[in-house]
């Protein structure tokens, strides 16, 4: 063993030939370069802003904005502050991205599966859909849906009427708004009870299956419960929910909840565009599960839908999820194209109007970018956690 008192060390190289020295030096230079670039950008910006008399700082956030926004999820009117417009833009961006992600996922999965249909017509139709909408710029598609399609809907006076309660016109879709009266709380309580009962039932069904082997149709029952119980409460309590049905008055419908066409067009375009990518991802995910896996599962006697649920989908998801999240990110970023048709998203409201009123470009652009960065980083983080959780154990 090495009980040598003076161990032989590999001789020391000449410093300029030592890769460690070189590496440290190189990195120092890199740090210096980046720091210098950063510093001079900062310095230039400061001095330019000063010499041009541009206001700096975030004080403007507390000033009154003074302009109206067509759609806002949170309470807003023109007497509120710029900080509020930031929140309005942010929530609108999150709304359109969230809905877009939801719809694009649904459409994407359907089309991706249709692509694998044994029906030639369906498969080719799915392919045609993908090839057409994937290869046309999103901005153009937004214009198309907004101006060329939704723009041709009739005006509010000639609105297409769905059962006299919901209306479709070029002002958007207007649906009745529920007005809760006394006793409506019971419906909520019934819903909560149904949810809890369903959860209990699913657990119980799983336990019973483990104990007796019998499979319990928990899913259909739970759905029935969640829908049925609140409905029951609704009638028992003597229908405590009134509906604010939109009515034509003056220029527009009043009452009800309106989904503005800008939102509609943006959602349509984002959904249809992103779904083409998701469809391809889904298809390749499913194809990546080798036919041997399906055959083995069938040979075990599993019925086809169980094969899907127990064998194919869990394996396909591993392949699907990572590229799927980057599509989600793309969709969120692409929602900034809202500015082209006037949907009041973050870029439109905050980086558009607010920036223009206050003139504080640097602060506002930085805040806007920070929002997108934060969204992106948190999704990446979740993604990494997921990936680690589902990584296949290998030798």
């Amino acid at each position, binding site marked *: 063993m090495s009980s040598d008192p003076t161990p032989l060390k590999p001789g020391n190289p000449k410093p300029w030939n030592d890769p460690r020295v070189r590496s440290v030096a190189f990195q120092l230079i890199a740090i210096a370069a980046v720091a210098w670039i950063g510093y001079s950008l900062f310095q230039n910006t400061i001095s*330019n802003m000063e*010499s*041009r*008399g*541009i*206001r700096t700082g975030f004080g403007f956030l507390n000033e009154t904005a*003074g*302009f*109206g*926004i*067509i759609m806002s999820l949170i309470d807003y009117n*023109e007497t509120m502050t710029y900080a509020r417009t930031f929140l309005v833009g942010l929530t609108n961006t999150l709304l359109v991205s969230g809905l877009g992600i939801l719809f694009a996922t649904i459409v994407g999965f359907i089309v991706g599966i249709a692509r694998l249909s044994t029906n030639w017509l369906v498969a080719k139709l799915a392919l045609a859909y993908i090839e057409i909408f994937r290869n046309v710029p999103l901005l153009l598609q937004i214009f198309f849906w907004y*101006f060329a399609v939704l*723009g*041709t809907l009739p*005006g509010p006076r000639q609105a297409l009427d769905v059962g006299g309660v919901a209306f479709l016109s*070029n*002002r958007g879709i207007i649906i009745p708004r529920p007005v809760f009266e006394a006793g409506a709380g019971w419906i909520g309580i019934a819903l909560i009870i149904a949810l809890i009962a369903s959860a209990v039932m699913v657990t119980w069904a799983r336990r019973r299956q483990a104990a007796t082997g019998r499979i319990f149709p928990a899913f259909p029952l739970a759905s029935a419960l969640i829908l049925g119980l609140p409905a029951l409460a609704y009638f028992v309590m003597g229908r405590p929910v009134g509906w604010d049905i939109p009515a034509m*008055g*003056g*220029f*527009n419908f*009043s009452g009800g909840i309106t989904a*503005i*066409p*800008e939102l509609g067009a943006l959602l349509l375009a984002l959904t249809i565009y992103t779904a083409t990518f998701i469809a391809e991802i889904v298809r390749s995910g499913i194809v990546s599960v080798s036919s041997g896996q399906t055959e083995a599962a069938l040979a075990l006697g599993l019925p086809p839908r169980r094969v899907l649920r127990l064998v194919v989908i869990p394996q396909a998801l591993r392949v699907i999820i990572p590229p799927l999240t980057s599509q989600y990110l793309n969709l969120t970023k692409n929602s900034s194209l809202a*500015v*082209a*048709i*006037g949907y*009041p998203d973050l870029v*439109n409201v905050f*980086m*558009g*109007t607010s*920036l*223009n*009123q*206050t*003139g504080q*470009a640097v602060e506002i652009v930085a805040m806007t970018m920070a929002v997108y960065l934060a969204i992106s980083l948190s999704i990446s983080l979740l993604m990494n956690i997921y990936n680690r959780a589902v990584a296949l154990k290998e030798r």
Partner: protein
Amino acid sequence: ATLQDVQDAGELRCGVSNGLPGFSQPDSSGNWAGIDVDTCRAVAAAVLGDADAVEFIPLTAAERFTALQSGEIDVLSRNTTWTTTRDASLGLNFTGTNYYDGQGFLIKTALGVDSAYDLDGAAVCTQAGTTTELNLADFFRANDMEYEAVVFDTSEASAQGFDNNRCDVLTSDTSQLAALKTQLTDPDSAEILPEIISKEPLGPVVRQGDDEWFNVVKWVLFGQINAEEYGITSENVEEMESSDNPSVQRIVGTSGNMGEILGLDDDFMVDVISQVGNYGEMFERNVGPDTPLGLNRGNNALWTDGGILYAPPFR
């Protein structure tokens, strides 16, 4: 200093609207025309002696101030309203007014509305980042009416939205409304309501803190107005050089040193007037009664003709 920079570059960078008939609009070979465009040309003629030495940079309303602040453009001439905030807190200076305007409403005749006070609940198309957007809010608030603001990033898109019936009313400066009306599928299906809800003095803007350049841009416009007042036109400017009216002489540079004290040649107004014309010519050419816009001088007539155009004297 901007004057020096422009002279060194041999070209004036001018921010204009990306398509507003009568004010700034490119034709399909890239030639820009409009009263805002001519304002820039006049500055270029004064500073560089060549009215064509301008690079026009189309900007959306939302981009314009940032572009000027950052130094991306030398002068902003993009039907921009002169307001306190803009003058004071954006680090900008308005050099004057090249068009006195007011905000109005364009409405579909079919709706049968004839007053802006009957617009309660209307959907209103407008352009992002404009005073229009703010005045609109004020007007409806003051009259206790509801409205729905449909905000587009270009005026052309807002007209498109109005045309598509996305909104009931299009609001903008009346001059623009006249221009936008011509772009409708059926220009006769809409009319401009009588109410003017705001004052909109539109004019060129420069960066704050560069007084030399501020003066140049300011006095080129004043010069054009004064030229109209003294009857100097692009036709007769040569002859006017031999005029013995001292006011005229100072304008055409045959007496006094107006150019020199501004940092320009003494006959800078000759370049401006011969190449671009006086204010009246500029007006008639771009927005006057013989153009598709067909606007009358109205407020924009000289003070001597019942308007409010009043330029300080060249002296």
